[in-house]
């Protein structure tokens, strides 16, 4: 060993003098996001499994239910795909809870919290990287959907807009998942707590069937479900129909969720050791 390890009377940590600016916070977020993204190509099996499930859903719903479900005025394929896209990206947000719980359990969160970085950057970096991972899943899913006849009937611009809307919506859900991941004690708990409520939320909605045939109370729940709003907005855009106020309503939901849950998560993170 040489003498380079030595700690000295004065630390040479540039962080001692570096200002705490927004640009450093962004840089921290990016470094943290890169920590997760860098490992993606190394575990192709993770990516494979995350894309396999949506592909399975696309094919199962299309070919098993597709024949018997009739939605007036639209082919079921064109109706269904936006719903599956929405469900898949929202399901994808659970990676945030699982990943954070894992970092907590393994002590990495302690390491991050003991570094002179912007603390919210840890959560921003995590949610951003999960959104980028979700984007990859989305692209694979779009390719499969196109292969079985799905089209951007409203044109490419609106198709892209619809896709971005769903990604933004799932990004908001990543913050709910962040709070879950920071609040549970184990990865297993994060997995269950992150996933369980997603099933009623995505099925009691307009994602797979029209809410008009549901019993009145269920229909009322489904109609106010933000997931219905997002699925309807995306569906209208993909199919070139008028989304009405659904696009803005979906974005408002997303913004509201981010504000509430990002605030709560950042607070929770600051007390992660308690």
């Amino acid at each position, binding site marked *: *060993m040489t003498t*380079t390890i030595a700690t000295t009377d004065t*630390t040479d940590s540039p*962080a001692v003098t570096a200002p*705490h600016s927004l640009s450093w916070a962004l840089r921290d977020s990016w470094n943290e996001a890169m920590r997760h993204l860098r490992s993606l190509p190394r575990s192709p099996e993770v990516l494979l499994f995350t894309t396999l499930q949506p592909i399975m859903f696309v094919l199962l719903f299309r070919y098993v239910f597709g024949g018997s479900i009739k939605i007036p005025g639209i082919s079921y394929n064109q109706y269904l795909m936006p719903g599956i896209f929405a469900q898949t990206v929202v399901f994808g947000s659970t990676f945030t809870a699982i990943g954070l719980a894992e970092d907590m359990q393994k002590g990495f969160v302690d390491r991050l919290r003991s*570094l002179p970085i912007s603390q919210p950057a840890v959560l921003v970096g995590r949610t951003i990287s999960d959104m980028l991972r979700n984007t990859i899943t989305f692209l694979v899913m779009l390719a499969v959907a196109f292969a079985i006849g799905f089209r951007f009937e409203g044109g490419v611009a609106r198709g892209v807009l619809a896709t971005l809307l769903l990604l933004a919506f799932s990004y908001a859900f990543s913050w709910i998942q962040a709070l879950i991941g920071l609040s549970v004690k184990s990865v297993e708990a994060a997995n269950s707590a992150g996933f369980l409520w997603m099933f009623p939320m995505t099925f009691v909605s307009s994602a797979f069937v029209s809410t008009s045939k549901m019993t009145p109370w269920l229909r009322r729940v489904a109609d106010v479900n933000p997931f219905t709003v997002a699925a309807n907005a995306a569906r209208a855009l993909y199919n070139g129909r008028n989304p009405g106020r659904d696009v803005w309503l979906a974005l408002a939901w997303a913004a509201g969720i981010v504000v509430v849950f990002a605030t709560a998560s950042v607070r929770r993170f600051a007390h992660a*050791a308690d």
Partner: protein
Amino acid sequence: MPVVEAVGLRKRFGKTEALRGLDLAVERGTVLAVLGPNGAGKTTAVRILTTLLKPDGGHAIVDGLDVTTHPREVRARIGLTGQFAAVDERLTARENLELVGRFFRMTGGRPRQRASELLTDFDLDDAADRVVKGFSGGMRRRLDIAMSLVARPSVLFLDEPTTGLDPRSRLGMWDLIEHLVAQGTTTLLTTQYLEEADRLATGIVVVDHGSVIARGSADELKAQIGGDRVVVTLPVDGDPLHDGAEVAVVAALAPHAVPGAPVTREGRQLTVAVRAGTNTPDVIHDFDAAGVVVQDVSIQRPTLDDVFLSLTGHGAEAS
């Protein structure tokens, strides 16, 4: 002025009082071992000193900065290696080190350069570009400590650095820590291994139930419980119950014995408290000169385990 100073630290988790007014200080260039059983409050103290946890009472200064009012400034000056190897196992060793460098605001080629230095210093050159997932426990620990030293911190906190390591890796870790200490790294380490504190630390604080019950050097602590003892085993062929043998032994030991110290006898074993520094050849020589025949002579020096037992009335294993 001490690099680390904690005064009257208190912390409560629900009904458990983890810390009840803990005081400690680490002088620059020294190693303080915080020694105590599981649940004594060692980790809680480290977490407060490293800004991870806010104390309910008392205050702590690290490198002249209050940990509760200037957490970010404190974080820029410390290195922490917690109980679990906090490495990202999906990344390579080099990537882990570079990441920490960037988080410490190093720019340009500096993170890479520093990572290379540390990889060499910590004997990880061969594994530098391998994903950490395949590393052994000892390698992970080394990388973990290297990550804590990226920015050459003013003080290094090691929370139970050898817990969970196999004996060989533990010895390796001790060598490593001794090396860091030799270079002047100010260190606070917690341990439940008495041997570890004895070997690595300049000063020791013994913690039990959230407060310090003793402090001093290893030798000072040992002196508190009465120093060295000679244990003599009487020969089998002699009459073990014959007082003559015992009297002869005690008489021969007189030059070494602590005046007035009691002699305890258990079967064929006699234990006599002797002055510090008494050695076996001297005792054997005196036995020979007096014509006393014994089967075995040994000198027992107290371990920190004895210290713990005498201070708390229970062993160091459970609090």
